[in-house]
């Protein structure tokens, strides 16, 4: 890559300096995630290169040791329930909020988004005490309810963003063709905002799947989720199985990222925004 011929020396230096600096920052961003992955194939239980040999035993432990596999199952269970609840509640709310002149919209929105802003330790401690009085602490339902509260802001934000460029005359067109409101929603609105809904659902899933502080307080010892298992594992003694768990989680988040990006492009195409 050559710089344009009209660049001054100063501009040329700035041009290359910027690229070198950005290269360094991007390396900083990606390298810790990449560097941990090969360590999960280490045949010995330490965390330095070069590795003496390769082995899949940490993956074997991760997938077949009930301590880990039960935690994975538990995480999926909680995250799926959270996703369903959060997506339904969040989408409905976003639909309401996007209607013209909604009363006290800014305040309502600020309340609905607050679970994302309030430090999670405060949410966790408050919910722990409150749910304990309702006999919900230590139950799966308690965790799902708590995670749903934490996850809905992401659904509200993504669906509201999608709806902001949604052409509302389409709803009137549907109604004037004789469709009932729910028919208009399922046949006209939903196909168009579906990418936003799925993005929101994925955010909700990830929020629950990665969450550790609330489960630290709310989960019973038998109901450990994967992050909780990792967290308590790390605090006691780092087992190399954690590197295998981390690698699997990175792969899952990569899949999520790819899906969301594809959805975003599709949504932009659907709504006629040239990318």
């Amino acid at each position, binding site marked *: 890559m050559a710089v344009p011929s009209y660049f001054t020396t100063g501009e040329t230096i700035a041009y290359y300096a910027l690229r070198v600096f950005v290269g360094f*920052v991007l390396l900083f*961003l990606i390298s810790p995630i990449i*560097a941990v992955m090969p360590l999960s194939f280490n045949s010995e239980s330490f965390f330095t290169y070069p590795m003496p040999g390769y082995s899949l035993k940490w993956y074997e432990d991760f997938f077949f040791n009930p301590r880990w596999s039960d935690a994975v199952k538990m995480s999926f269970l909680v995250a799926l329930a959270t996703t369903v609840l959060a997506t339904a509640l969040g989408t409905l709310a976003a639909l309401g909020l996007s209607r013209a002149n*909604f009363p006290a919209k800014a305040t309502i929105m600020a309340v*609905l988004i607050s*679970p994302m802003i309030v430090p999670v330790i405060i949410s966790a401690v408050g919910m722990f005490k409150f749910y304990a009085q309702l006999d919900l602490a230590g139950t799966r339902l308690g965790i799902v309810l708590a995670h749903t*509260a934490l996850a809905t802001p992401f659904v509200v934000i993504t669906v509201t963003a999608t709806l902001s460029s949604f052409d509302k005359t389409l709803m009137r067109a549907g109604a004037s063709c004789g469709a009932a409101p729910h028919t208009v929603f399922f046949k006209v609105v939903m196909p168009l905002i579906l990418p936003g809904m799925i993005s929101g659902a994925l955010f909700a899933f990830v929020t629950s799947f*990665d969450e550790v502080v609330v489960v630290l307080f709310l989960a019973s010892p038998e109901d450990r989720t994967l992050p909780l298992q990792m967290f308590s594992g790390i605090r006691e003694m780092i087992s190399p199985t954690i590197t295998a768990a981390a690698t699997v989680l990175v792969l899952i*988040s990569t899949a999520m990222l790819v899906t969301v990006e594809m959805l975003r492009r599709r949504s932009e195409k659907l709504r006629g925004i040239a990318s």
Partner: protein
Amino acid sequence: MAMAQAAANDGVMRAADGTPLKVALARAERREKVKAVGLVLPLFAFIILSFVVPILIMLYNSVYDPDVAENLPQTVVALKQWDGKELPSEEVFAAFVADMKAAQKNKQVALVGKRLNYEISGIRSKVVATGRKVAALDAAPFKDAVIAIDKVWGEAETWATIKRSSSVYTPFYILSMLDLRQDANGSIERVPADRSIYKDILARTLGISFLVTLMTLIFGYPVAYLLATSPQKTASILMIFVLLPFWTSLLVRTTAWMILMTDGGVFAQVLNYTGITWLLNTAGLMEGEPQLFKTRFATIVAMTHIQLPFTLLPIYSVMKTISPNYMRAAKSLGGTPFYCFLRVYMPQTLPGVAAGCLLTFILCLGYYITPALVGGPTDQMISGFIERAINSENNWGKASALGVILLTATMILYYVYNKLIGIDRMKLG
């Protein structure tokens, strides 16, 4: 029908059923509004019940303090007359003995001891022992007998503390989080310097958050600039480097840093091979091998890594909207590239900078996991102390008071964010 027709001639526009159009429109709009509210209501009610109410109840614990008032009721009444100078009278001791007997029967003595122990360290076991021995006292005079059980009851300070904590509501927890306390007369004073620790914790939390925000800005701004000005194809590829960490769980990233930063781990190896260790040793900034694990440095690095996308993405989305024509115009008017950037481009990016930095600062204030795993004991932030107050000390008053302070700081910044940027303009990814 006749009426509708008669009315139709008065010049008012009417809907098909004969109601004036204005009324029909207002009615339709009201119906729309009710429908919209109905859609939002389920989530709103859910958030209030499962999230807002629990937090409010928890915060209430920071001023609600019933342990002494409920378990030493007669003592509290008797102490009302006490001037706080000499030891209390025989009456107070008699009430105290009666209260302690009842508390011993209800197994509440330990609660009283725990509460008093927050203000007079070491008194807990003395209270518990007194509770056991007080049953043997059944005839006046009680004063000397109680002091004989433990001489802590012969100190005016003990009784002053009981009197101070005798209200169901107390400013004690909140005051102590600000390193303040009430003296025997109820006026507020600073605690001695050797016992004032909370100011440090607050300053540390703000300091780490500020430093991390600054680092993410320094690292994020150039990246956002390059992403926003590069051709679409290059930008999409570079964007993966930003979005992949963004989507990777906080715990995984913290774990990664923890593994890399262990003593003699990969990070230290990199420093050794690149000669940075040698350089720092020569410059006298470091001695021997890098010791990174459980340090402030590791905490800042890991937090900067985790927060970088949060600062970067809002800046990027603002930069995307800035037309390159402004810079061209500025240059054609004779500005040097640096001057044009400083005076024309940068001011336009400030809304993005404000949005990104505020968001990062707000999120940093609440960090718990990362300092707990990669930081040392002196790198723990407010959240860490809240966790410890509950799980290790079982002191809900203290945890709630710390929560009040953390939440107040967060909410003020959230309000500023809302006013400045608007919460409905927040975007993800």
